[in-house]
């Protein structure tokens, strides 16, 4: 569901209670973000295993921005939303103001490419999509936004 072009406006779930966090592009700052995800997951009684999946997906989204976005403000902006009538889902939006990328043009990784062609990197977006229930990627010259949701 990658989108190219102009910056997206407010997400459809803008009314959900939300927590915002801005982290600098610096080693291990992604772990600061996972602490927030863990706290919200525990607040909504999400299982330990699902919280771990959310944390890893968030780590991958952050390091993707750290490595590829080349942001001018050297920051990654993260918004957490707990939604549904009884806290049924946790949504995380990771946004940078970097140079964007062609999400449609990214070649899918595979174990064969990893082991036989020794192309070991490029797994981040694939892992995010495998661990989260809903993932939307929008990217353009305004930056990149990864919106991901996990149901309890």
């Amino acid at each position, binding site marked *: 569901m990658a989108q190219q072009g102009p910056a997206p406006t407010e997400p459809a779930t803008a009314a959900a209670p939300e927590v915002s966090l801005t982290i600098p592009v610096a080693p291990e700052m992604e772990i600061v973000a996972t602490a927030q995800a863990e706290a919200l997951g525990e607040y909504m009684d999400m299982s330990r295993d699902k919280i*771990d999946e959310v944390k890893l997906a968030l780590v991958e989204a952050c390091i993707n921005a750290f490595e590829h976005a080349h942001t001018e403000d050297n920051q990654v902006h993260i918004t957490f939303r707990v939604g549904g009538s009884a806290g049924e889902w946790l949504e995380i939006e990771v946004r940078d103001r970097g140079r964007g990328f062609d999400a449609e043009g990214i070649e899918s990784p595979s174990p064969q490419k990893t082991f036989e062609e020794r192309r070991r990197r490029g797994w981040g977006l694939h*892992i995010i999509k*495998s661990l989260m229930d809903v993932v939307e990627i929008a990217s353009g010259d305004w930056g990149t936004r990864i919106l991901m949701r996990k149901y309890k």
Partner: protein
Amino acid sequence: MSETCKVSVERRGDVAVFWTDGYINNQGGEEIAKEAYAELDRGARALVMNLGKTRIVNSIGISILIEVLEKVMERKAVLAFCGLTPTIDKTFRIMGLAQYAAIYPTENEALQAVGATA
């Protein structure tokens, strides 16, 4: 704040057992790789990695573990993982690590499988 992974290693005959504690990113992966290559150079024929105290391994850390696995395979040695959380297990399977390295639920099962002596 530091989440740097701590790695400890012990020999059981010609099997090297590794325990990790903390986040395995590029730094943690490099630390594991350094210890793994040293054990292979000392003649270890199997490496057992217990990740029981690690809850996150990012894709960079896994790519370094894949490098370790390739080195292990070149040396005709064996690499086994154990104590993985369901999320780490799932990620190892997504990236194909499970096709080339064995994964066991517990350290005892891994040690038995590689034929470690006490």
